[in-house]
């Protein structure tokens, strides 16, 4: 039976009122100091009563708020796994490296995955891969074996990152939500494009590039890998034939400009969800909007801490959902 999200969407509509608007972002940028920024964010409901002053603590608290709200709104969080897989695979990466280097990973684990970071670490430490969720088992074993046999951390990262993208894409294809599918498509495609550019710049072989790319509908990874094995211009030429043609200029400018292009495209594509009353779409859109907001706040707070020019911040800021 099709799940009804009417109640959840109605609550999300009210919550959307507290999302940061472009005006809030401008006010943050124009704040005189880091402390003024923090005070503005506290007034907007950021953080807890303890008023965290550390950027990571504040923003990780905000991410936890997203997931505690989602847990309150729906009894089944699995449709949102696409948004949580990146934390799972991050924790897997940290755990594999911590085990092979015999260091404590607990300060580096993310808290909002589908399974706790500690559980992943314990399973990796005990080489008990069957204790891991299905989407991590094979990758964990492959990454661990590769790292132990070759000592190549970069190869290990590539294996985990590619597996993460494939898992996100597979999970999204199982849902009925266009927003979740679009998120997966853009996430995988943009990661593939960034990887291709990076591989071209570091002169990687075609086989390596092919292994590092995850398949998706909007990008033909064989053609992209072949282009990346030749030159940057070949990558740009190939992308000009895809739906990412308008991203070529951003890609030529800088990787961060391309990331901004991708995030803006995603935010623009989810805006119709503001008028959708029954489906999971507005919930997924809210998660994306909150993540986007957290990204913007992180950028502004880091800039305030390091006395960066506000123009540099403005160039990197994404469009907001509200």
């Amino acid at each position: 039976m099709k799940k009804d999200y009417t109640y959840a969407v109605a609550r999300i509509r009210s919550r959307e009122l507290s999302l940061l608007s472009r005006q809030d972002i401008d006010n943050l940028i124009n704040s005189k100091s880091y402390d003024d920024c923090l005070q503005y964010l506290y007034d907007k409901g950021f953080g807890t009563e303890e008023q965290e002053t550390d950027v990571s603590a504040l923003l990780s608290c905000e991410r936890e708020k997203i997931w505690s709200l989602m847990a309150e709104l729906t009894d089944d969080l699995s449709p949102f796994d696409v948004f949580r897989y990146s934390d799972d695979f991050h924790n897997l990466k940290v755990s594999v490296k911590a085990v092979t280097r015999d260091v404590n990973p607990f300060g580096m684990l993310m808290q909002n995955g589908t399974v706790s970071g500690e559980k992943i670490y314990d399973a990796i430490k005990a080489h008990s891969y069957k204790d891991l969720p299905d989407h991590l088992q094979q990758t964990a074993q492959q990454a661990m074996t590769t790292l132990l046999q070759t000592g190549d951390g970069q190869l290990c990262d590539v294996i985990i990152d590619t597996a993460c993208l494939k898992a996100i894409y597979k999970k999204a294809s199982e849902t009925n939500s266009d927003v979740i599918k679009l998120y997966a498509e853009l996430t995988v495609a943009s990661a593939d494009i960034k990887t291709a550019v990076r591989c071209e710049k570091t002169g990687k072989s075609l086989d390596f590039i092919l292994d590092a790319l995850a398949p998706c509908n909007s990008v033909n990874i064989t053609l992209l890998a072949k282009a990346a094995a030749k030159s940057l211009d070949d990558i740009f030429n190939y992308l000009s034939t895809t739906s990412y043609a308008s991203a070529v200029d951003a890609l030529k400018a800088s990787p961060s400009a391309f990331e901004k292009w991708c995030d803006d495209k995603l935010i623009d594509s989810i805006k119709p969800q503001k008028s959708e009353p029954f489906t999971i779409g507005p919930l997924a859109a809210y998660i994306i909007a909150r993540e986007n907001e957290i990204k913007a706040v992180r950028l502004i707070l880091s800039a305030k801490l390091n006395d960066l020019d506000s123009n540099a911040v403005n160039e990197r800021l994404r469009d907001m959902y509200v």
Partner: protein
Amino acid sequence: MDNLGIFFGLLGAALATFLAGTGSAIGVGRAGVAASGVLAEDPSKFGKVLIFQLLPATQGIYGLLVAFLILSNIGVLGGDPNISVTKGLLYLAASLPIAFAGLFSAIYQGNCSVAGIGTISKRPDQFGKTILLPAMVETYAILALLVSMLAVFNIPGLNL
């Protein structure tokens, strides 16, 4: 078989109540779920969301009204309960507009109310405009009520 006329008349009254009432129950229920979602975040909007929730309730009342008139005309509520099979069938036919238009209009009005509740949760100042949108659906329930009532009122005068 002598009372077949009454049976058809009663069937008409039952359909008007049952179908229009079912539509209203679905519509009001759906809008109520959305209203609860808004109230969980902002209880001060109770008055506004309540009006949206009540909009799809009218179809059930229209069905009840037509059913009451039919029951009265066929003599179930008093008077002579003997009516012909043809008249019984005519009452059944007369109940169909409000039964079906009531069912579907209430469901769609409920959907429209849910969307309206979402809108006023963000823009309470737009209540006046937003309430008009689900109210437009009411037009078709009223048209159906009108046809059903005209028919029910005029069937006794027919020489059948």
